[in-house]
């Protein structure tokens, strides 16, 4: 019956992997057992009305742990960044649909922008050398998880806004020459819209992980709406239940 953990889990490891970017390993055996790449957790922040959604970056079923990488954006993520190993944390996980990886012998392109990169790591693993990551960051010191991707066999191509690392410019500039059979993307909406367009032009399936402000995280409050294309016209689906991963073709890319 009970399919989520809300019990207090324990922080096992914490590291600041780039200024303002934190890497947490949490002990939560039940959630780890059920989790798949692309799902997320809702973190309770003491004193806050709403939980904070953070994507699962790594799943270690053997050790019963989940890994999360997040950026401090406001009070809630700041509070989470102050938690230390040994301390309890309450999370509701795993939530959402996760990536449908399909045939992992396909050439898979992973496209990530900034804090959109971590949710892709666990999905890239099974593709091994068939995966390429094209990732964009603000600058050299905001580059995260490059080694993690490379250690799964994945090729990495990096762009930075200021050219301080990799190529100067946008993620899209990194992939003009690449051949791929499927795309998995996470990052700012304009980036997702652009990659969705490119994939559509090439006739390649594209899966995007979306963000929206959430309350319940389980599909009950209808808070996290995203406009989707349906058989009978556009409608509002929900990131926490129908997503966070959507087939890019079903998303209505407004503005």
């Amino acid at each position, binding site marked *: *019956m*009970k*399919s*989520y953990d*809300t019990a207090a889990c324990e922080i096992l490891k914490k590291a600041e992997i780039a200024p303002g970017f934190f890497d947490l390993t949490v002990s939560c055996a039940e959630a780890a057992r059920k989790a798949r790449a692309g799902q997320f957790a809702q973190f*309770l922040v003491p004193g*806050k*009305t*709403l*939980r904070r959604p953070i994507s699962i970056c790594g799943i270690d079923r053997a050790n019963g742990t989940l890994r999360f990488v997040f950026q401090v954006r406001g009070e809630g993520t700041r509070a989470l960044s102050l938690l230390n190993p040994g301390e309890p944390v309450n999370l*509701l996980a795993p939530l959402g649909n996760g990536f449908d990886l399909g045939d992992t012998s396909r050439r898979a392109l992973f496209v990530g922008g900034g804090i959109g990169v971590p949710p892709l790591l666990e999905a890239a693993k099974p593709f091994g050398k068939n995966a390429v990551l094209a990732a964009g960051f603000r600058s050299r010191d905001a580059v995260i998880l490059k080694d993690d991707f490379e250690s799964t066999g994945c090729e990495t191509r990096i762009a930075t806004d200021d050219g301080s690392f990799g190529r100067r410019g946008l993620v899209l500039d990194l992939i003009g020459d690449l051949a791929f059979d499927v795309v998995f993307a996470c990052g700012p909406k304009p980036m997702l819209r652009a990659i969705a367009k490119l994939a559509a032009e090439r006739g390649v399936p594209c899966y995007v992980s979306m963000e*929206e*402000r*959430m*309350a*319940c*995280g*389980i*599909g*009950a*409050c*209808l*808070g*996290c*709406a*995203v*406009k989707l294309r349906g058989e009978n016209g*556009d*409608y*509002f689906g929900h990131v926490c*239940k129908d997503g966070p991963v959507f087939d890019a073709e079903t998303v209505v890319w407004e503005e």
Partner: protein
Amino acid sequence: MADLQVNIAGVTFGNPLIAASGTFGFGREFAQFYPLSTLGGVACKGLTLRERAGNPPPRIAETPGGMLNSVGLQNPGVEHFIREDLPWLREQGTAVIANIAGNTPEEYCKMAERLSEAEVDMVELNISCPNVKQGGAAFGTSCESAAAVTAAVRRYCKKPLMVKLSPNVTDIGEIAAAVEGAGADALSMINTLTGMRIDLRTRRPILKNNTGGLSGPALLPVALRMVWQASSRVKIPVVGLGGISTWRDVVEMLLAGASAVQIGTVLFSDPYAPVKILEGLEAYLNENEIPAVSELTGKVKPW
């Protein structure tokens, strides 16, 4: 063991905890945490005559001790509910309350008529939703329109009729009395207070709807005051809600004049809240040798 059962307008609830409309969907999502029979009742997501898409996102904003929502009554319509959701919910061993909202008295009446044939235990008239441009807010904020829509629906509704009041009014006692006079069998209160948040970076309201409804603990003292004021003006039972998050809040609400309570926003930080609140409530009743929870209703002694 204390008796937790309460009776509201002829409907028996196994305990006084009811899930608040819009925070519990049609119950399915929460059924993975515990049997829905844990709850005395479930007030379903607000229904409209036809399917409604709801407001564009963002629909959620956090506030100190609370949150704003501008979901805007996204729902599959009353027929879909009766066909697809009600049969399942009916089987869960909890009382079912259909919450309805309309743009015109006619829409309300049609829904009430249709639901009168369905297996719901009670109809909750949402005359207070602040997110709908026409109708909703207006009905609940004047005595005349609140009474008029209640009286109209009363004629079509064969189920016990509970009217849900808006807190965005100058005199809640007056509205409560008007709605009672128009034939309501019970009141539920309060719905959300209208609020706003602004994103400093974009200088735009966080909610695409600009404003939204405030819910959560921040609301509790206002809800307690209004339940106290309204329940002292009417004879029909009052179901109290707004910011309840602990069993102590439940007891306060009952003392203030409520016969049962609804809980909403607390479910988002803790989906298991109903289980914990009930445990606390039972322990409180037993320790204080209060034989029945219904004895608490209205027992506050004002100064």
